[in-house]
Structure formats: structure tokens, C-alpha cells
């Protein structure tokens, strides 16, 4: 792969810039094990080792502008092989969090913004959500062994509340059925909330701690409101 050497203005270097970050980035021994283990190494001439060095040297603009933190899958193979136990995935996430929200690639921030505003990434209205669940429940009830199956929505005092991944009420409604069938066979006392059911939490990917707290807080609020004993969060 062709790489060009770029001359970096010394004024950009500020070793103290990320000094408060506790990811052990300054302990890097530049061994390159992370780079060898990374599925995204080489894209745009980047790799984890280079990224760690850039953070350690305080090259803020360069790392925040780079595409690489967003191409990283946060799979943590780098951290697993690192002899100095540098928390590279968490560092990647923190760098993602520094980017202007309008410049977050793809639908990640848009989906999150929709979730913060409407409760779910799709901005799916409550009545449509309930309609989809009941429609799928009717399909299950037509299968042998599941006669009379219904979906218990907003059931107070249930043993288990399950969140729902938005794709299961969008393009993959068939995949709602697996857990529901297991609950039916196990005679479980379960429920799905009609509010705050969103199981994805894209603040995890965009480095947005505040948004993550809000989304997780809503699920907790729902648990308390419905007095449910246990939370199943399959996402």
C-alpha cells in the first residue's frame, strides 16, 4: 500500500492535550501487535498503533478529522493483544465523541437524535409499533402449538420486560417471533413496553455519553413504572 509522509507542524503537538485520558496511551511500546490484529488496519493508511501515537502526541485535529476511528469496529482485538493493556477501543470512542455531531458519518447521529426526540431510532409512532406487534402475534397464533398466543404489552408486575431492536419492527419482523415462542413455551410472565422499547443505544457508537445515559435511563424508568422484576436487553 502506498503511503505518503506528511510533515506535521510542531505547533500541533501537545503531549498534555489528552493527558487526562486514562487509557494508558502513553505506555505504548510501538510493538505493532494491535496493527497486526486489527481488521481495519491499512484503510486510509491508518492502523491502531498510529492512532495511539497520535493521541499520545496530542494531534487532536488529525485524529478527530480522520475516517479511521469510524471505520474501526471496536472489536477490541487490539486491546486483547496489547502487552501494555492500552484501552484502544475506549480511546477510539472518546475521539468519536469529539467530532461535531453534524459530521458523524452515515445515519448514526441522525438515528440517535430521532431516538432522543421520539423514543426510537425510526420515529415510529406508538400506535404503529403496537399494530406491528399485534400483527406478528396473530401470525404466531396461527402456528400449531401457539393457539391463542397474544403479546402482553405494558403488563404491570411481569417477571420479564424485553426491549426491542428497531430493525425487528422495521424490516425484520419475523425475528420478533423467536423469543416470543420461547416465552410461550416456558409459560413466562413477560411484557413489551409500548413506550421506551428501543433496545439500541447508538450513543455507544457515536461516543455520546449523555445520550447513552438518557436512553438507558428511559428503559430503567419503564421498568419501575411497570414494576417489572427483571430486564432482558437482547441488543
Amino acid at each position, binding site marked *: 500500500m502506498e503511503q505518503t509522509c506528511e510533515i506535521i507542524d510542531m505547533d500541533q503537538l501537545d503531549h498534555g492535550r489528552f493527558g487526562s485520558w486514562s487509557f494508558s496511551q502513553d505506555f505504548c511500546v510501538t510493538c505493532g501487535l494491535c496493527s497486526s490484529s486489527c*481488521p481495519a488496519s491499512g*484503510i486510509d493508511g491508518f492502523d491502531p498503533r498510529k492512532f495511539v501515537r497520535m493521541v499520545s502526541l496530542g494531534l487532536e485535529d488529525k485524529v478527530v478529522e480522520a*475516517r479511521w476511528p469510524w471505520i474501526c469496529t471496536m472489536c477490541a482485538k487490539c486491546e486483547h493483544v496489547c502487552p501494555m493493556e492500552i484501552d484502544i477501543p475506549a480511546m*477510539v470512542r472518546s475521539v468519536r465523541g469529539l467530532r461535531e455531531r453534524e459530521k458523524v458519518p452515515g445515519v448514526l447521529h441522525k438515528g440517535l437524535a430521532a431516538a432522543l426526540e421520539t423514543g426510537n431510532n425510526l420515529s415510529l409512532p406508538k400506535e404503529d409499533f403496537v399494530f406491528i406487534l399485534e400483527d406478528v402475534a396473530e401470525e404466531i397464533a396461527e402456528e400449531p402449538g401457539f393457539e391463542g398466543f397474544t403479546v402482553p404489552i405494558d403488563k404491570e408486575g411481569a417477571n420479564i420486560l424485553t426491549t426491542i431492536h428497531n430493525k425487528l419492527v422495521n424490516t425484520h419482523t419475523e425475528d420478533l*417471533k423467536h423469543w416470543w415462542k*420461547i416465552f410461550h*413455551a*416456558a409459560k413466562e410472565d413477560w411484557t413489551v413496553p409500548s413506550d421506551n422499547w428501543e433496545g439500541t443505544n447508538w450513543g455507544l457508537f457515536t461516543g455520546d455519553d449523555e445520550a447513552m445515559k438518557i436512553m438507558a435511563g428511559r428503559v430503567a424508568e419503564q421498568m*419501575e413504572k411497570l414494576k417489572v422484576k427483571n430486564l432482558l436487553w437482547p441488543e
Partner: protein
Amino acid sequence: MKKFGAVTVFDLLIKYIKEGTIKLDKSRFDNVLATYHDPCNYGRKAETLFGHGYFDEPRWILDQCMDNWIDLYPTKKDQFCCGGGGGTLTTGYNTERILYGRKKMDQIKATRATMLVVPCHSCHGQMNNIKKEYGMEDLEVKYLWELVADCLIL
């Protein structure tokens, strides 16, 4: 102040099976060879963040559903990334995402399995999305709980 409990998909399935509240037909997939992929969040990252990686639990569940499954190599903590994590299914950088699923596909091909079991929505989406790119159209990608639901004796 603990107001409610939380259960993982693995612990709940294991509880149902061990208590006998669900019964499984182990012969359902007698003619299928399956393999299992460890997602980063349930494995490596859970071990680092919460002190326990879910490596053995899904394999125990697989054992209750079928005799005929084999592990990928490498596996568990050394597992290769599917390429679909970290939000990469939604960033729009699709060429890159497909590229780094290549090692995963090589691993699966090496087992000759026709079914891949996963307990993660991102891995499931990624594998289904890229399998045709690697000549693996016939690979059936199945959620772990889908496998359990398929084996239910009613």
C-alpha cells in the same frame, strides 16, 4: 438501591433449559453442520468490562440443540471480528466493512458448516449482508435464540 434485576440472553435460556420449562428436540438439525461466532461485546469486551466473557454458555446451549457443530479457529477471546460492530453497519463505509469480513468468511469456510449461529444483532446483520460477496449465499445465519425456538418441543 436495586429496584430490578437484569438477565442476559444466555442465562435466561440456560435457566429455562435446566429447569425443564422448555424442552428441546436435539434431532431437529441432525443433517446440518453448524458453527458459532463469538461477538466482541459478549466475549472479549464483557470479560474486560464486567469480569466475565460469555464463551462457555452459548456453547452449552448449542450442545442442547444439536450434536453436530464445530468451533471456528481461532475462537473465544481470539475470535476474529465479523466486521459489523462499532456502528459500521450504519456509517455508510460499506466497501470497507465488506473487506474486513473476509477473515471471518475464511474461518467459516474452513469448517464446511452450512449454519452460523450468533447471539448478536450486528453480527447477524453483517454476516447476512456480506455472505454473497464471498460466495457463501447458502450459509444460514441464525440467532442463538432462533435455534432454541426452532428446537422447541411443544
